[in-house]
C-alpha cells in the first residue's frame, strides 16, 4: 500500500506522464489495431480501437504480394555485416588512440571526430559514383561499405579504454602479453559494456537506414525491409490500409520485441551514447 500513498502524493506528476505516454503509445496501437481489421471495418465514423472480429489474413497476404521474408534476411545480413566490420575497425583505432603515443595522433583523432559531423547524406552522391565505378551497385555490400568506419564508435570505445589502469598494461607486457593479445585478453573484456552499447545503437540505426539503400538498390533480391515497405506503399498506392499497417507492424516488430525484452540494456546503451568524455 506504500505505492498507493505515493501515488496520491504525486498524482499531478503521474497524470501528466500518463497522458503523454498514452498519446505516444496510441499511434502504435493504431498500427496493430488497423492491421487486424477486415477491409470494411476501417471505414467507420468513430475510430474502432479494438478490432473485432480479428483478421490475421493481412499478415499472410502481404507475404504473397512482396517478398518480405527476403527483405528481412537482407536486413539481417546488412546490419550484422556492418556491425562485424565496425567492431574491428573501432577497436583497433580506439586502442592506439587510448594507449599509444605516435606522430600525428591529434590530427588523426581530429579526423575521426570530424567524421561524426559529416552525415552520410552529404556523401551519397560521390559514394554512389564510386560504387558505380567499381560495379558494386545493387549489392548487399554496397549498403554496408560507407558505414564500416565509425568515428563515433571509436570515440566511445577510446573513452572506455582510457579508464582501464595503465598498471594493468605494464603487468601484462612484463608477462609477455603485449599488443593485440593485450587488447584481446584484457581491454576488450573490460570494455564489454561499451561494446554492447555501441552494438545496440549500430543495429538500431542501420535497421532503420533508408536513403542510402534506396539509392544503391534496384531489385527486390537485395532490398532491405525499409525499402521493401516504401515500395509496398507505392505498389498499393495507399488504398488498402489494413495491408499497409500489417506490413508496417512486421517491419517495426523485430526491434520493438528486442526493446521490450532487453529494455534495461537498450535504455542504458542509449543513455551512454550521449556521455561526453
Amino acid at each position, binding site marked *: 500500500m506504500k505505492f498507493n500513498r505515493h501515488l496520491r502524493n*504525486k498524482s499531478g506528476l503521474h497524470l501528466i506522464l500518463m497522458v*503523454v505516454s498514452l498519446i*505516444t503509445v496510441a499511434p502504435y496501437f493504431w498500427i496493430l489495431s488497423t492491421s487486424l481489421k477486415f477491409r470494411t471495418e476501417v471505414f467507420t465514423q468513430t475510430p474502432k480501437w479494438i478490432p473485432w472480429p480479428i483478421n490475421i489474413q493481412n499478415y499472410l497476404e502481404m507475404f504473397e504480394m512482396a517478398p518480405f521474408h527476403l527483405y528481412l534476411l537482407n536486413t539481417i545480413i546488412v546490419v550484422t555485416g556492418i556491425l562485424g566490420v565496425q567492431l574491428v575497425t573501432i577497436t583497433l583505432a580506439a586502442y592506439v588512440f587510448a594507449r599509444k603515443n605516435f606522430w600525428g595522433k591529434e590530427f588523426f583523432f581530429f579526423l575521426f571526430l570530424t567524421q561524426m559531423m*559529416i552525415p552520410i547524406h*552529404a556523401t551519397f552522391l560521390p559514394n554512389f559514383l564510386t560504387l558505380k565505378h567499381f560495379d558494386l551497385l545493387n549489392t548487399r555490400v554496397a549498403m554496408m561499405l560507407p558505414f564500416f*568506419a565509425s568515428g563515433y564508435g571509436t570515440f566511445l570505445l577510446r573513452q572506455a579504454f582510457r579508464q582501464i589502469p595503465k598498471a594493468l598494461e605494464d603487468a601484462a607486457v612484463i608477462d609477455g602479453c603485449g599488443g593485440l593479445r593485450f587488447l584481446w585478453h584484457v581491454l576488450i573484456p573490460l570494455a564489454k559494456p561499451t561494446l554492447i552499447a555501441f552494438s545496440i545503437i549500430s543495429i538500431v540505426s542501420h535497421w*532503420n537506414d533508408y536513403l542510402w539503400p534506396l539509392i544503391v538498390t534496384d531489385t527486390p533480391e537485395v532490398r532491405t525491409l*525499409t525499402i521493401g*515497405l516504401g515500395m509496398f506503399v507505392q505498389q498499393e498506392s495507399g488504398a488498402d490500409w489494413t495491408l499497409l499497417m500489417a506490413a508496417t507492424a512486421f517491419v517495426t516488430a523485430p526491434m520493438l520485441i528486442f526493446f521490450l525484452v532487453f529494455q534495461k540494456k537498450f535504455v542504458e546503451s542509449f543513455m551512454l*551514447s550521449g556521455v561526453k568524455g
Partner: protein
Amino acid sequence: MKRIYRLTTYGYLLPGLFFMGIFTFIPVFMSAYLSLFKWNINNPEPSFTWFSNYIEVFKAPLFWLVLRNNLVYAFTTIPLSMSLALFLAILINQKMGWVRSLYRGSLFYPTMIPMVAAAMLWVWIFNPGLGIFNYYLGFLGFPKLEWLYDMRYALIAIIIMSIWKNFGYYMLIFLAGLQGIPNHYYEAAAIEGATGWKQFRYITFPMLAPATLFVFIVAIISSFQVFDQVFVMTQGGPGDRTNVLVFYIYQHAFRFWDLGMGSTLTTLFILGLLVAIWLVFRVIGRRVYYEV
C-alpha cells in the same frame, strides 16, 4: 626495432582510416570538385564552368523556398522537442518505483521504429477522412483539415510526427545527465532555502549543460538531414512546401540526374552544417566548460 613498433601503431589505424578516407573524406572533396562542372543529361561529358552552378543555385527561387522550409522545420522541431524532452526527463527522474520503466519505455520506443514505418503510420493518422488526428482534434473544436494535401499544413504535419519520433531519445540523454548530478547539491540548496525554480536555475540547468549541448548538436544535424518522412509522406509537395535540403539534393542527383548541380548542393549542405556546428560550439560550447 622502434620503427617497426611505430609502423604497427599506424597499422591499427589503417582499417578505420581506409574506409573513412574512401567513403567520407574523399567524397567531400569530390563533391567540391564536381560542383565546378556542368554535368547532366544535356551535358553527358562534364565541362568545367567555374562557379556557374553556384550562381544558378542562388538564382533559383525554389532553393530559397527549400532553405526556408528546412529552417522552419529546424527552428520548430529543435526547441519543441528539446523542451518537451527536458520537461519529461525531470518528471521521470522523480522517485516513483517500477512505473518509471513503463513511462520511459512508452516515451522512448518511437526511436526504435524506422522513420519510414513511422511516416507510413502518420500518413494513415493524418488521413483527412478516416484519420484519427482529425477525429480527435474535432473534439477540441478544430475543423477537418487536409493536412498532407494542404500547402499550409503539410509541413506542420511533418513537424508533429518528427517531434513524436525524436523527443524520446533526447529525453533519455537528459535523463542520463540528471542522474549524474549528485544528490547532495540539492540537499545543500534546500538547507540554504533554494527550492523549485531556483534549484532548477542554479543546479539542474548548469549541470545539464553538457547533455544539452550534445542533444542540441544531434538535433541540428538530424533536422538538416530530414528526408525519409518527406519522401514517404509528401514527396516534397504540395507545391514544394515540404521540400527540404536533402530531398532537394536527392531530386537533382537521382531524379534529374544533374550530377553537377547535385554536387554543388551537397557542397553547400556540408559547408552550412559545419558552420552551424562551429557556431554552436563557439557560442554555447565555451560556457558549458566554464560552468561545469
